[in-house]
């Protein structure tokens, strides 16, 4: 039903000094409804730029994005966003943050109460409903951000390193939560991450991007996300293919980084 088409996107930033950066070049992707796609790539390969274009915060210099046949021209509630951190509203309580989307639609507190309570229960923050967000830990704040995004019932959820700032243990719990929510709600999710493990565990599809210009390097279809739903993620990691794929991708990204370093050294 909600098919996200990224059609031949290119993005070029003109720099003040007259030069330019080709952040993305001819990126084409077809993301089906309910797919969970993780995106990996060396720093600066255009992951955030791609996500910002899909979210509608940036207009690509070439190409189009369509969701369900409608062209994306700006941000809209059907494409929800979860940021790395600092995107919660400190002046609102946990509940007010989560009900922000419904509030914007003009829903009364009563109407949204059911959804909000349910989501807070799902992310395990039922008892923190009336707390101020600055009183929560980093992991709890990201759960609020997740609940806030879900409360708006978007078709596509875009996540830019949502778990990047968390410690390993909290991160693992959050990964399970993301998987469970994905299965339960059937949302389309694009998740950018720097962690190869996270990309493997969560990505039903895994996209490796290459830099300069930013482009799709390789794509995988992986079984681990399905295995991970409702299961211990550490068990999934024991899957025979897991380590092989991990090594392969690590090698790939390592080589790209090497290449960048080498190239900058030549320039220098």
């Amino acid at each position: 039903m909600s098919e996200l088409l990224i059609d031949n996107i290119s993005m070029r930033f003109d720099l003040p000094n007259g030069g330019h950066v080709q952040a993305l070049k001819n990126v084409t992707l077809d993301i089906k409804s309910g797919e969970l796609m993780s995106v990996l790539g060396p720093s600066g390969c255009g992951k955030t730029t791609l996500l910002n274009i899909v979210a509608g915060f940036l207009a690509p210099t070439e190409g189009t994005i369509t969701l369900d046949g409608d062209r994306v021209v700006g941000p809209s509630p059907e494409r929800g966003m979860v940021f790395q951190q600092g995107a919660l509203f400190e002046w609102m309580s946990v509940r007010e943050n989560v009900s922000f989307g419904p509030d914007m639609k003009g829903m009364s507190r009563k109407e949204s109460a059911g959804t909000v309570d349910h989501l807070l229960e799902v992310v395990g923050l039922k008892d923190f409903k009336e707390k101020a967000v600055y009183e929560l830990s980093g992991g709890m704040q990201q759960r609020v951000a997740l609940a806030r995004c879900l409360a708006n019932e978007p078709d596509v959820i875009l996540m830019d390193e949502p778990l990047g700032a968390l410690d390993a243990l909290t991160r693992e719990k959050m990964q399970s939560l993301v998987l469970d929510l994905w299965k339960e709600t059937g949302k389309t999710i694009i998740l950018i991450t720097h962690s190869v493990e996270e990309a493997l565990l969560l990505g039903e599809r895994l996209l490796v991007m290459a830099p300069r210009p930013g482009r799709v390097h390789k794509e995988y279809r992986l079984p681990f996300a399905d295995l991970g739903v409702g299961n211990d993620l550490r068990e999934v990691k024991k899957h025979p293919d897991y380590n092989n794929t991990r090594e392969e991708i690590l090698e790939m990204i390592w080589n790209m980084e090497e290449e960048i370093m080498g190239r900058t050294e030549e320039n220098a």
Partner: protein
Amino acid sequence: MGITILLLYVGAFLGAFFAVKYITQIFFSRVDYTSLKTVTFGDESAVKANRVASVLSVITILLLWVAFTNSTLPLPKAPAPFEGTVEFTYTAKAPDGATDDANVTIIVYREDISQTLDENGEPGQIPTTPEIEPGDGFAKNDATVVPRYGYKVISVRGNDDVSRRDGSEIVAINGQPIQPGEAIRLPEGDVGLTDKGTPFFEPATGQRMQRLYLPAPEVATERLGDLFVEGYRNFTLIEHTWISLQRVILGFFFGTLLGVPLGYAMGLTNWARGWFDPIVEFMRPVPPLALIPLMIIWFGIGEQSKVILLFLAALWIMAIAARSGVSGVAITKVHAAYSLGASKWQILRKVIIPNSLPEIFTGARVAMGVCWGTVVAAELVAAERGLGMMIMVASKFQLTDIVIVGIILIGVIGFAIDVGIRQLEKFLVPWKGRI
């Protein structure tokens, strides 16, 4: 005297420090997180205002105030100026070489006698010159009065049988030979001869300040009471204070009312930023005090000119605060709000305005401080009411106690305003500094 006070002050600072440190070590050795830190010097978070020191600091100032003024409070005091009756003899030498002694009686009275009240509630009177026996010989006895901290040339020869015009001169004071231009020191003061050979008396000033320079604390307190009840220049202290405050509140209110939207506009649109930038950047470094003359030329010396002055003082500060409040909003918050379906208007209300509140409060504190300082200055220049006018007029009449009371009140109110805004900020912007 200045050096004495400075040394005493430094002594109190260090002495109290070691005393308090010693006492706390004995009685309250506490183990908390800070006390366990081994690195405290340079760790800003380990430095907290020692409230004992704050209290002692205020007490020290009050004690010094008492000690170095003519206070009647029973506390340690610096040496007093001489007050009372003093006598000295002078020896006059006639042209023929004959000498004769005569007595001079001087009553030294309080310099602020007319500002004191006697038992009947009447203002004190300057004592009259006492009647004394002229005595015998060609030099006759004299009497006069002189205020503390005063200086008096005493024309002792007026009643003498032989005067300076006849070639007679004074050769000794209290039996001590003396030349014109010299003086001898008595415990009660200095007696000497002017260059022309006339005796003068300068009472000993001790180490205390006279009322004109610094009134004693109880005098200031009493004056405070008077000002409350009777007022000064047709208005009570409350009225003077209120009119000053009212000007500040009005000026600040209108300045904020216009400045904040102006700042928002500058933070949100290119056109407004470009249009108002030159004006704001130009007006920002102009001190409000420099505008007083222009305000008086344009709007006269009434309320209008003062409120407009304070309005201008607050306007730029609030505009700049609001502008930086808007610029300070994290783009992720704005993006998040758009993705959650907020309209521009909702973004403004739900994200930009709340996000700018901490900056606006910081601006409000600065603006209130500047307005309060400016109103006093403006009233010093021209006003019929207000704390600034009160101290200005009082200073012309040398009523230092009113000046001191006024200054203390200005300080206390300024401080209270600041604390008030800080409390309001804590209540309205609890997330400030915790993001």
